[in-house]
């Protein structure tokens, strides 16, 4: 199913070099990472050098060149969250998952990311799992929240 979706995204933009970021974003959303083999197909179909596809894929933070876990855990490290205890929250999440930001565990359950401000500052510090916001978090609540994501 994923493969079909990816093929469709690529085919829809064949011959459109300016659509590179659009295409990579769509594929990232679909697969949650960008395998090199897919990047090569994108480059070939859109008519851009593979080096350019790699440049974009490695430059922008949204793109991942390695597979991600089933659940993406973001700890907001924006300025308000920082002021209100975001560091302690991040430390607790690191401890609970055994991960540093950017890492994925061996079982492929979690990928941990430090997210810059996501704009829900009024309810910081925040933990965002798979896009779902858990606001006004304290380190004590971390285990309970993470347990909801097997």
């Amino acid at each position, binding site marked *: 199913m994923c493969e079909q979706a990816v093929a469709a995204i690529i085919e829809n933009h064949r011959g459109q070099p300016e659509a590179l970021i659009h295409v990579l974003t769509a594929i990232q959303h679909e697969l949650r990472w960008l395998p090199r083999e897919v990047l090569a197909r994108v480059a070939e179909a859109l008519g851009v050098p593979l080096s350019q596809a790699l440049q974009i894929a490695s430059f922008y*933070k949204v793109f991942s060149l390695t597979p991600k876990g089933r659940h993406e855990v973001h700890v907001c490290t924006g300025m*308000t969250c920082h002021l209100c205890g975001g560091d302690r929250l991040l430390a607790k999440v690191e401890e609970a998952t055994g991960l540093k930001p950017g890492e994925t565990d061996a079982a492929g359950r979690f990928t941990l990311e430090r997210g810059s401000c996501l*704009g829900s500052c009024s309810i910081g510090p925040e933990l965002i799992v798979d896009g779902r916001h858990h606001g006004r978090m304290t380190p004590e609540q971390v285990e309970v929240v993470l347990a909801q994501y097997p």
Partner: protein
Amino acid sequence: MPKFNTAAELEQYCAHLLAARDPARPCIAVCAGAACDGLDSAAVAQAFTDEIARQNLAGRLDLRVTGCHGFCEKGPNVIAGPQDICYFEVTPGDVPEIIRATLAGEVYEAKIYRDPETREKIAPMSEIPYYKHQVRLLIGDNPRLDPLKIDDYLAVGGYAALVKALTTMTPDDVLAEVKRADLRGRGGGGFPAGAKWETTKNAPEKTKYVIANGHEGESAAFMDRAMLTGNPHKVIEGLIIGAYAIGAHQGFIYTRHDAPRLVEHVKAALAQAEAYGFLGENILGSGFDFKVELHFDVGIFVSGESSALMRSIEGNAPEPRPKYIRTSVSGIWDKPSNLNNVETWANVPQIIARGAEWFAGIGSEKSKGTKLVSLSGHIVNSGIVEVPMGTTLRTLIFAIGGGVRDGKALKAVHFGGAMGGSLPVEYIDARLDFDEMSALGAPIGAGGLLVMNEDTDMVDIARYLMDFLVRESCGKCVPCREGMFQMLKILTGIAEGRGRKFDLERLAELAEVTSLGSLCALGKTSAAPVKSMLQYFRDEYTARIDAGSQTP
């Protein structure tokens, strides 16, 4: 969906639309803004839907899921019309009572505002201190419309300014109006919008572009998202009017990929505007053609900078260019491209509809109109606030924001995120004004206002902001990449008790060089927080160095 070929057709449609709506009919507006959403306002909205169905109230009670109402601290927010009774911290369990009270013309007292000091209960929006001191010209319509319904926008007078511009004004008239209004850019620089439009308009190249910058990468700023998510048509209407004045036939909206509701609303709004004939060919029979494409930032701060943003729209890495090439003359694909912030565009319809004199009558001498500010940090009432330019920080923080939380004292306020500055409490009567705040060393940036209590460690704040910028530098130019890295090293040393005697002099020098030598505003203004620290909090830094340093 109707497609309007002339302004007259649209006016007729709007007349019918208004006639069919009963302003006295009770209506519940459930906020689905970013904070309320995070507090599970979706469950509240669902409870209203279920309860309305269960009691068979369709036709007697309307329900609307809306964009941000503003008082994020006390979400989930619900406003019950027609009296605009505000309910806070609403749970699904409150829903039957709110419905009962609303239909009976009463107030459900358990969830209305209670003054923390006087304990007085206040129900109507216009009397609650948080809202009372605001002038909500831009954000005020948010509770009145479902962002997914273009008819709701038409019902509050939407697209009337577009009709006025296209049918009664020439492009030059529109430009002249915006110039007379003295509208200044809301994205950070405060640059006069009219002058920028004119540069693009007069550029010799025929193909021109207009762009709305909805990137909002500034930390602790969340008002652009609230505007664009809650009322996308206002921004789109402004963009179309601007394109008409400038002579552009292609526009772009550049915004965040990571806010699903925002993306959904903007996509729907563009599709509806096209279906109604406000976008496309021969708009409302005027002969003017205009299309808009939606583009996403992909998670890097510098892509909000004008030249980097344009590179990103072209499909390239967002590397800024030197400023001597102006994007208003040579931007996307080297065509003249006029970029304005989302809030700047949102101001355009009202300037056209109500006139430049009206607009210029609001605000301070050199900063006109209102400004959206996001209030957060150690403040009692965090949320999105709209006040006339020239409002004092005291009004913002105390009258509206309710002061510092947990009974602590105010130490400093910070404006403008990583490229802004911190002001000590002595400046509490400073005014929200582009030039006055810049002169003090805390430029208002996009409008993120962070409140810091007496326990805040100012060394840590500067270190934190520099750490953020080091991660966000695109790395293309040396002064930014290396200068910031060295500043971070020094700040980290001071923060960790390894400060040295000459650190502050060295910081000042690095700040100077990085500001002078960097290509784009990211590097140029990266030292702004450091400069404000050296100006206002030097003693704290010196004390830290003295306390922690063993080595000379």
